[in-house]
C-alpha cells in the first residue's frame, strides 16, 4: 500500500508573498515526483502562484531554483519525494 510522506516547503521573494506564508508542511505520496506536489500546491494556493511557478504549457519554469535538502535540483520532474524532504523554492531575484 502506498505510503504518504510529510515534507516542508519554504518560499522566497514573490513566491512567499503569493503563498501568504514563508513555510508550510505538505503531504505527498512517497516516491511521487516533486513537480506533482508543486503543481498541487500552486493550484490550491492561487492563480498568481500557478503563474509564478508554471508556464503556459504547465511546465515548471526553468528560472525557479528548486532546492532539496540544501542542494539545487535540476530535474524536478524526475525527482522523487521522500520523508522529511526540505524543499526550498527560490524566485529569481536581481535587485541592486
Amino acid at each position, binding site marked *: 500500500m502506498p505510503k504518504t510522506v510529510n515534507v516542508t516547503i519554504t518560499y*522566497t*521573494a514573490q513566491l512567499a508573498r503569493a503563498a501568504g506564508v514563508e513555510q508550510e508542511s505538505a503531504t505527498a505520496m512517497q516516491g511521487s515526483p516533486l513537480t506533482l506536489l508543486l503543481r498541487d500546491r500552486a493550484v490550491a494556493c492561487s492563480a498568481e502562484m500557478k503563474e509564478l511557478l508554471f508556464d503556459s504549457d504547465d511546465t515548471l519554469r526553468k*528560472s525557479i531554483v528548486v*532546492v532539496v535538502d*540544501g542542494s*539545487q535540483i535540476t530535474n524536478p520532474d524526475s525527482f522523487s519525494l521522500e520523508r522529511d524532504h526540505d524543499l526550498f523554492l527560490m524566485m*529569481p531575484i*536581481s*535587485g*541592486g
Partner: protein
Amino acid sequence: MDIPGFGQEGQEKLRNTTALVSRTGGLGGPIALQLAAAGIGKLVLAHGGNLQPSDLNRQVLMRHGSLGQPRIESARETLQAFNPHITVETVNANINEENAEELVGSADIVFDAAPRFNERFLLNRQCVRQRKSLIDAAMFSMEGQVVTIVPGLTPCLACLYPEEPPHWNRRFPVLGAVSSLIANIAVVQGICLLTGIGDAHLGKMIYIDTAGMNLRKIAIQRRIDCAVCQSVPSAAP
C-alpha cells in the same frame, strides 16, 4: 590588515587587482566602498543615469546635493575622497552589448549588482568567455544572495537561471541595510577568492533572509547543457 593568512602578500594582491563593479547603487555602491577600504588597486565602475530622490534610501555613495547629476560622478567623488590612493575609472553607462567585452577585459574580477537580468546575463556571458571570476549579488526586500562564479570551476549564472525570469520587475522593495549587508558579503567572497583567505564558497549560493536572520548555503549545480558554460572544460578545484 592583521588577519591570519592575509598579511603583506594579501594586501599586495588587492593592490594589484582591478575590479569591475556593474552599477553603483544600493548593492554596487557599498561593494565599491568596501573594495576601496580594503585597498583594491583600481575600480572600474559602470552606471548610467542621473541621481533621483528615490535612489537615496540605499545608494550610499550618492549625496543629496548631487540630485539631477550623473550618479557615476557622485560615486567617483565619494570613493576618491574616501581613499585617494586607489584609481577609480568611471563609465557613465550601464553594462551593454557595446561596452561589456572591453570592460570585462579590463578587470581581474567582476562584481555584478545590476537590477536587470539582461545586464546580468550579458556580464555572465562575457565573464565565462574571458574566464573572469564573477561575484553576483542580488536582493529583494529583506532577502539577498551571493554567488561566486569561476568559469570552469563552478556553475555560471545561466546554470542557475537557464531562462530569463518573466516576472522580475524593475521596481523592487529595498531596505538599504539589506543591500549593504549583501554587498559586504559579496566583497568578503571576492577578497577570499583573490587572496585565498577564508572560504570563497565555490559552487554554493549564500542566501540570507534578514527578516528571520536565516542563512543557507545552497549547493548549486553546473548544467551540462548550459548555453553559456557547457564548452568550458571543468577544471580541478
